[in-house]
């Protein structure tokens, strides 16, 4: 019994430390490139003998003791800093008003105003949706723009270099006959080896992708009536795209959603958002009658601009999150 336990613990320990037996189909990452031969040493600029030896001896001592001492000192100091900061913050937390009490200073007249007038001023049943897409719509526009900018910068950082490298190291696809095994050249950084004949993954994807897409659409469209909205619905939609890419390969998703589609749809959504909300803010600030109807609270067509804005945000979030996944795993979109 004890031997058995020890054996199980040893295999678990090996697995944790990464020493265990390797599965046969594991993709071993490539060796890092060998260090460049630095044959030419920097020249010694000190002509006088004793200065040079002093410097050399200092460097030697630094190599032997200094770095180790410094790392110990650094670790100790950083733990000390964190303990001091956490204890200061805990002392502050102990003085905060009690958790969940209705007389807390956070529940002030701003909240009363939002809850009591939010319904008929924005036309949305979900007060948070009315808050973020009507009162504070400019903030949400900034958030969408931040997401779009992050996606475009990741595209610039990863997409361009990968494409150049793929063109320079263009290698024919190798097919293993009989197993329908697709491999793009040597397995290098960021290139998966796809197995196209995975029946379980295909069946699960066939069953669940329509359900996930429908769920995402419901969450986006009902954003002003129920919890959810553009951000959470867009995240659900992007999981459907990621599942499709994993089950059928990135090429299949690439046919209907690629870099061009992403840029066009996201810029159009941002533009619609900016123009419609700009009109709404302009008329509201100048007391001009706005043509946008509020609708009755609780109907699907209510809440003024909240439904179209939720659709725009959902489109941007779905494209961005799928784009992050595709760029990080495949280097292209």
């Amino acid at each position, binding site marked *: 019994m004890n031997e058995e336990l020890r054996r199980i613990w040893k295999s678990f320990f090996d697995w944790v430390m990464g020493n265990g037996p390797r599965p046969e189909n594991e993709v071993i990452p490539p060796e890092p490139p060998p260090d460049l031969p630095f044959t*030419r040493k920097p*020249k010694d600029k000190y002509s006088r003998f004793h200065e040079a030896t002093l410097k050399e001896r200092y460097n030697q001592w630094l190599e032997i003791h200094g770095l180790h001492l410094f790392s110990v000192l650094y670790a100790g100091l950083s733990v000390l800093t*964190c303990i001091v900061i956490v204890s200061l913050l805990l002392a502050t937390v102990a003085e905060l008003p009690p958790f969940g009490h209705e007389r807390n200073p956070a529940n002030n007249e701003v909240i009363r105003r939002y*809850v009591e007038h939010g319904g008929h001023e924005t036309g949305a049943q979900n007060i*948070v949706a009315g808050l973020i897409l009507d009162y504070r719509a400019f903030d949400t526009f900034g958030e969408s723009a931040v997401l779009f900018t992050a996606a475009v910068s990741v595209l610039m950082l990863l997409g361009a270099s990968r494409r150049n490298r793929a063109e320079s190291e263009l290698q024919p696809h190798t097919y293993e006959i009989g197993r329908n095994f697709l491999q793009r050249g040597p397995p290098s950084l960021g290139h998966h080896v796809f197995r196209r004949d995975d029946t379980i993954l295909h069946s699960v994807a066939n069953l669940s992708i329509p359900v996930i897409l429908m769920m995402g659409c419901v969450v986006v469209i009902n954003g002003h009536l129920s919890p959810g909205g553009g951000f959470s619905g867009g995240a659900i939609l992007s999981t459907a795209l990621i599942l499709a890419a994993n089950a059928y390969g990135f090429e299949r998703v690439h046919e209907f959603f690629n870099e061009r589609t992403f840029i066009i749809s996201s810029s159009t959504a941002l533009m619609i958002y900016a123009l419609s909300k700009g009109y709404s803010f302009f008329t509201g600030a100048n007391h001009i009658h706005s043509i946008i109807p509020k609708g009755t609270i609780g109907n699907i067509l209510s809440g003024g601009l909240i439904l179209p804005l939720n659709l725009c945000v959902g489109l941007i979030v779905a494209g961005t999150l799928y784009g992050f996944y595709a760029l990080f795993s495949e280097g292209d979109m």
Partner: protein
Amino acid sequence: MLEKLLLNHYEAAAVILSGIGLTNLLLQRNLIKKIIGLNIMDTAVYLFLAAKGYVEGRAAPILIADGSGGWLRSSALYVNPVPAGLVLTGIVVSVSVTAFALALTLKLYESYGTLNIDEALMKMTQEQEELEARIDDAEEEVLSS
């Protein structure tokens, strides 16, 4: 002090979580683990904001029908809706920053073949020294000719 901390246990947990994240950020030498530490600190902020918005015994801020075609609009019925919007902003910014930082880390790995920040710095210093030695040689050649 301890009973007050137990009364505010969500905020205390958020503070401890942010301390864990900060320690992770300072002590880890692997860049991806550093980014995970930053994400732990983000999570602590969401927990703190959500805890500040909660009011005992009140419903989520979605208007409840009063049964006769109208809506219950009393502010004594719903929790604070503002922290939800603030947490949303936080999540979006954290996702964007994480993605950008990971992309930069990937570029660093492609250039230097390591995720360890010390090794990468060492290789950068070696490159710099190599460059300076070459510049010195070129200057000497120009001066001697």
